[in-house]
């Protein structure tokens, strides 16, 4: 158990250092959601409702958490393949999933930078007065959301390993998740058939928890659901990665796409 935790921690730290220095994974992951957040905040400011603007500032801050993971997670194993390190990861005595999870956790951590950057952007560029109801619980809810998003990214990463255009898959998921998980628009405002999809996605509960922590209400149930779904995604991802690695070894297709 200690060895697994050490592996996750060291892997996360190594990936975080590497990705933070990448213009695409690091800088763009923080700046890109700011463009969407700015557009959204301009819209709400035009709408004229102060409370809606504050709510939008909090919702917009979470956009970047998913942005930091969506495209990069889907391409992470392609990148390992391109660098010639995918075979080494598969051949390692450690379970393959334990080597991929730190990658997406690092992406989620960069997403947390983006969350903070967007909140500060709203405060200083738009003068939005955000007073968090429970700052510590807000931080906890944000971390739970980042974990949920990271493990969703983990499932995406292992699912896309056989897909040559994996980056396109990640890009295509970016905006639907923003919409379906109620980052800005309440889920109740979406068509009824969308809601069951929202319920099985961890960010839905993470965003709800963040809102509750910021504006009052109890976030604990939402945090618990977010983490529970995250564990479920981790289990499915681990099983799937095992199957894919076995298949790739059996058919000698690891290096092929």
């Amino acid at each position, binding site marked *: 158990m200690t060895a697994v935790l050490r592996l996750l921690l060291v892997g996360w730290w190594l990936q975080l250092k590497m990705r933070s220095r990448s*213009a*695409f994974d690091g*800088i*763009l992951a923080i*700046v*890109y959601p*700011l*463009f*969407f957040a*700015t*557009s*959204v905040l*301009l*819209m*709400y400011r*035009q*709408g*004229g*409702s102060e409370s*809606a603007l504050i709510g*939008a500032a909090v919702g917009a801050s979470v956009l970047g958490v998913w942005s930091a993971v969506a495209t990069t997670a889907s391409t992470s194993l392609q990148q390992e393949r391109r660098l010639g390190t995918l075979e080494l990861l598969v051949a390692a005595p450690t379970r393959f999933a334990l080597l991929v999870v730190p990658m997406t956790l690092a992406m989620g951590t960069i997403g947390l930078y983006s969350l903070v950057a967007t909140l500060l952007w709203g405060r200083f560029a738009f003068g939005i007065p955000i007073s968090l109801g429970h700052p510590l619980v807000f931080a906890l809810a944000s971390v739970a959301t980042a974990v949920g998003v990271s493990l969703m990214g983990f499932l995406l990463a292992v699912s896309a390993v056989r*897909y*040559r*255009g994996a980056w*396109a*898959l990640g*890009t*295509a998921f*970016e*905006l*639907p998740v*923003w*919409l379906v998980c109620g980052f*800005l*628009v*309440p889920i109740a*405002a*979406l068509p009824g058939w969308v809601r069951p999809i929202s319920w099985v996605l961890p960010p839905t509960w993470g965003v709800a928890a963040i809102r509750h922590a910021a504006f009052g209400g109890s976030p604990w149930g939402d945090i618990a659901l977010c983490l529970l779904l995250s564990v479920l995604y981790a289990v499915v991802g681990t099983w799937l990665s095992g199957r894919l690695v076995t298949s790739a070894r059996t058919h000698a297709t690891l290096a092929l796409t």
Partner: protein
Amino acid sequence: MTSVRVFFIGGWTSYRALFGWLSPWILIPTFIIEPVFQILFFAYVGRDAGVGDDSFFLVGNAIQFASIPCLFAMGNTIGGERYAQTLGLLLVSPARRVPLFLGRALPVIVNGLLCSLIALGLGAAILRVSIPLDSLPLLALVVAVSSFACTGLGLVAAALALRVRETAVLSNLVMGVLLIFCGVNVALSALPGWMAAVGRVLPLTHGIEAARALVSGAAWSNVRGLVVDEAVIGLGYLVIGLAMLKWFEVESRRSASLDRA
């Protein structure tokens, strides 16, 4: 004749060779799913914020999406060649630069046009926005001119790619600027003055305004000026882009930095 061949055949070959977009596995998520969801995202945000109507966000975002292939493809014109280690071979060739680079722009303009029109059609069907049928030819013309203008800006990005390694990051940043400043989701009249002023010298702004007017039933005579402005802005960026390409090419040769950028 050689220049004509470089323009058409060279441009088409480059387009096919450099981009994997011809695969439906990439083309559909990138050029259909993403723009449609961008339209839906902003339409729902607009409803929640109580601003604009679905038609406003449909037209703004559908036309803004023409910029994606135009910016990324032109940026990749340089970045992709460098990645394939053919940039040096390309620039050492005796081919004239204007047909060489403009030939690469032509398929991209068509790509931007189709991408935008498909997004417009699908978005209109999902949001149940009715677009007057008689406005469609003019709407297609406006989108084509907007794609041309974005390709001009894309050529500037392509030139910068001779100096900047991360062309994808550069194109994303330019796209973000267009999203905010061009009246895509917030009308120019509702933007701060300095932002509106910046928007007026960027591609897309006049095209989006003209398209919105056409969808509202305006006649060609009412939007002709806007379309001309959009074309002139595109032409301006095209000239600047070609000049920058020339300058950076000379500089790259002088400082032997072509593959180091």
